[in-house]
């Protein structure tokens, strides 16, 4: 039986106003070479100047991934030549990363699995290359952008685990608010190491570099497991090598073997003196880490008695989950809040493809709406109408209900008066009342509703009718 072992090296561009080692614009743009400082082109005489925000973001992620943090921040140079690397070296962390020995818990169908993390380190991105028939073009906007690389131990054993890890890692990035982690903008990229073995010992590691989407990570893993298994089954030997995954064919191609491995000649970056990491600083950063996705889900299930499905839907994004938390904090019944959020609210957001930040709805409104229904001021049917109004107008439910004169008549005597009126007006039918004929009572309910323009509480109306009809004319 062949067993696959997978390790992932996941790169993510972090978002800040300026780049990690240069004070130029760190944001994404389509226009080439406009977000560049001298550092980003590697001009002679440049020096790196370290962005405090980038370190704080990296330390935040390090702690969110349960890593051990260093006593000081230091950087190393990784030396190699490539057309997208203007300085001829990348500033990275080799000897003392922002985090080591951490873990991420992922939720698989058969329970929680712990993926251990070797390290997480802060570095700079390279320029981007656009390839044409006979030439390539270099855009230096991406050069120097803040990049954080997380390296797992080789402890993943299936495509599903790998994808779940990617998803979970992405959710932690989003929950920590350090990046939007958008693959379509190349913000998240992944190197995948796969080995296959039928013994306890690990097989030879094959590395696939720079895979640009989760979908392709899955395909690359599938292909490599199949390829390596076939090689081994036919008595062959898997070479330790670097392969390139071609996303058009789904096939991996040999790039270079181990003998060609580059010696990066890492050495300490002499332009960035060590910066001490104090306990106090760490505490301040730690305070900014929110409760993460999996923990929230577990809390929703255990504390609020929500279904696993609902909990899953609520924690999909931090914004929604925060919104739900705020509703609950205001005293809204969790299940009712959940129904409104996962039903009407998320339905609306999905349909219109916008985020919760883009609608004028607040947790206070949800609470008010739920209260109105609870107090039977409006019916649940009316509540839906109110919701539709408030998501567009941003008005309070109470205000909407008032403006639309939706208040139900719940006052017994008021309904009683209307009922008696209706009975008198329909004297004949009332006298002929037969409890066996249920349609008859619906007719009277309808008449009461018509008279009150739908504001009479239907249940109350029914109750009074059942009481009054048998007595009528007797």
């Amino acid at each position, binding site marked *: 039986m062949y067993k696959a072992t997978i390790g992932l090296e996941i790169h993510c561009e972090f978002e800040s106003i300026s780049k990690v080692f240069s004070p130029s614009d760190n944001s994404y743009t389509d226009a080439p070479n406009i977000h560049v400082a001298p550092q980003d082109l590697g001009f002679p*005489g440049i020096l790196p*100047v*370290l962005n405090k925000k980038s370190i704080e973001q990296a330390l935040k992620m390090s702690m969110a991934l349960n890593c051990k943090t260093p006593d000081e921040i230091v950087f190393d140079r990784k*030396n190699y030549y490539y057309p997208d690397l203007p300085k*001829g070296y990348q500033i990275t962390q080799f000897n003392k990363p922002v985090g080591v020995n951490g873990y991420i818990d992922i939720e698989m169908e058969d329970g929680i699995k712990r993926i251990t993390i070797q390290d997480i380190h802060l570095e700079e991105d390279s320029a981007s290359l656009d390839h044409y028939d006979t030439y390539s073009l270099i855009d230096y906007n991406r050069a120097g952008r803040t990049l954080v690389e997380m390296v797992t131990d080789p402890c993943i054993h299936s495509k599903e685990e790998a994808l779940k890890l990617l998803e979970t890692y992405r959710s932690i990035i989003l929950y920590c608010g350090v990046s939007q982690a958008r693959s379509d903008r190349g913000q998240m990229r992944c190197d995948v190491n796969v080995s296959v073995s039928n013994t306890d010992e690990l097989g030879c590691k094959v590395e696939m570099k720079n895979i640009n989407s989760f979908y392709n990570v899955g395909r690359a893993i599938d292909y490599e497991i199949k390829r390596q298994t076939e090689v081994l089954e036919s008595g062959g030997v898997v070479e330790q090598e670097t392969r390139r995954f071609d996303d058009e064919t789904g096939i991996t191609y040999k790039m270079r073997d181990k003998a060609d491995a580059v010696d990066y*000649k890492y*050495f300490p970056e002499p*332009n960035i003196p060590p910066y001490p990491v104090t306990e106090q600083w760490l505490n301040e950063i730690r305070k900014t880490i929110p409760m993460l996705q999996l923990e929230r889900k577990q809390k929703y299930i255990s504390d609020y008695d929500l279904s696993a499905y609902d909990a899953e839907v609520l924690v999909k994004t931090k914004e929604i989950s925060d919104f739900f938390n705020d509703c609950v904090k205001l005293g809204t019944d969790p299940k009712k809040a959940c129904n409104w959020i996962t039903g009407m609210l998320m339905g609306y957001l999905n349909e219109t493809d916008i985020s919760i930040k883009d609608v004028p709805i607040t947790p206070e409104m949800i609470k008010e709406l739920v209260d109105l229904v609870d107090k039977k001021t409006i019916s649940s049917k009316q509540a839906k109408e109110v919701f539709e109004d408030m998501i567009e107008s941003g008005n309070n439910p109470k205000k909407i209900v008032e403006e639309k004169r939706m208040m139900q008549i719940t006052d017994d005597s008021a309904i009683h008066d209307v009922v008696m009126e209706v009975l008198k007006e329909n004297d004949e039918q009332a006298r002929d009342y037969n409890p066996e004929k249920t349609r008859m009572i619906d007719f009277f309910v309808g008449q009461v509703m018509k008279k009150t323009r739908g504001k009479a509480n239907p249940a109350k109306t029914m109750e009074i009718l059942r009481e009054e009809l048998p007595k009528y004319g007797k």
Partner: protein
Amino acid sequence: MSYLDKSLEEIHAALKDGKVTSKELVEESLKRAHDYQDELNSFVTILDDAKEKDITDNVLSGIPYAAKDNYSTKGILTTASSNILSNYVPVFDATAITKLKEANACLIGKTVLDELAMGGTSTTGHTGPVKNPWDTSRLIGGSSGGSAAAVAKGIVPYALGSDTGDSIRKPACYGGIVGVKPTYGLISRWGLFAFASSLDHLGCFAKSVKDAAYVINNMKGIDDNDMTSWDSSNIDLVKDIDKDVSGKKLFYIKEIVDELKNSNQKYYYNFINILNYCKELGIEVKEESIDIKLLKGAYPTYMAISCAEATSNNSNLTGIPFGNKKDGDNPYEVMINTRTEGFSELIRRRFVIGSFILQKENQEKLFKNAQRLRRLIVERVTELFKKYDGYIVPASGDIAPHFNEEIDRLSEKYLLLENHLVIGDFGGFPSITIPSGEIDNMPIAINITGPIMEDAKIFNIAKKLEEKIGFTPLSLRKEK
């Protein structure tokens, strides 16, 4: 005597009084630059369109100067004396250049250096060797040779240089002028083409200690663009320069002076004479010993660290975003052709050595051991500085050599006498070379080095000693 040959204070006073104009000084300086270019080859670029500047209260205002061609100058060709940058026109100024611009100083030219500042002779630049104004059959030393020659010849009152091993302080010695590199980080390195970042210092040449003090005062300051720069707003190098130095304490390094005694009697007696001047000034001078193994290891340490850092620092020179690009069928060929043709043989050898030193299997034994020895040397000197205000040593072992003079780089003389100035770069110590006399009509010098951030003290001692010595720079000796 032309006003251009006077001290900065005197020129400033003349400018203020209207006895001379900035325009006249700039024109005179440019004329001299051209007149002596064939003889000395001190300039890569002479800025014929250099403009006069308004005179302010700043002593440097309106006065011409030159900068080594590894200072990034916006809109002005900056080659680092290498073919690979023979067409490079920077889009930003070095911080030091910006500061001198703000001081209304007038840049009149960019001076020749050893290619990429990697050398000590100023013979390897892509526009040819720089000659020593005292004797053009001799070299001026390097790597800041063009700047040294320009000041020694009186083309400019002062010029900027950079010092990674001894690249200011050695040519200053061979040129009979003052050469200073202050504490590491006193002057921002932003815009200085990196050679070995952990050793690179900016500094200047001038005819006198006080002139140099004015220049460094204007170059220094903490800079957002250099994380290793520091706030020196409380340091004024001019203010206390004439203070009484009696009671100050200096030591000389026994092993170095012993070697001088063995190899160059004339130089030795000059040095002993200087020590007597110290005593006359009330400076207490004592002999201290430093393990000869440490001293002999200094130059090898320098080679290992500087070649390693240089290999990495110069990896940006590929011809792609800038530089003298050569064609090729693929990007690698482009880089290979650019770098093969762009670098001289010597530079390529140094890079191979540097990368060998950094290789995974060698790094521990070569690079890290060098970094360790660097620490041992710095710690030993720092420990001695607890008892002293600085140390005084001969700046070299001999007068400037002739071109193509063979040197044995394994000899005691070479290791102990010719390369000890590198200690100042190891520890980032402020260090100043001042002329101490002559041998065979060629200048010799002493060097004073002190604890970090005590730059003002070193200037003070050097100034008082300079007065005692009474050396007349070459440019003031004959009619122009």
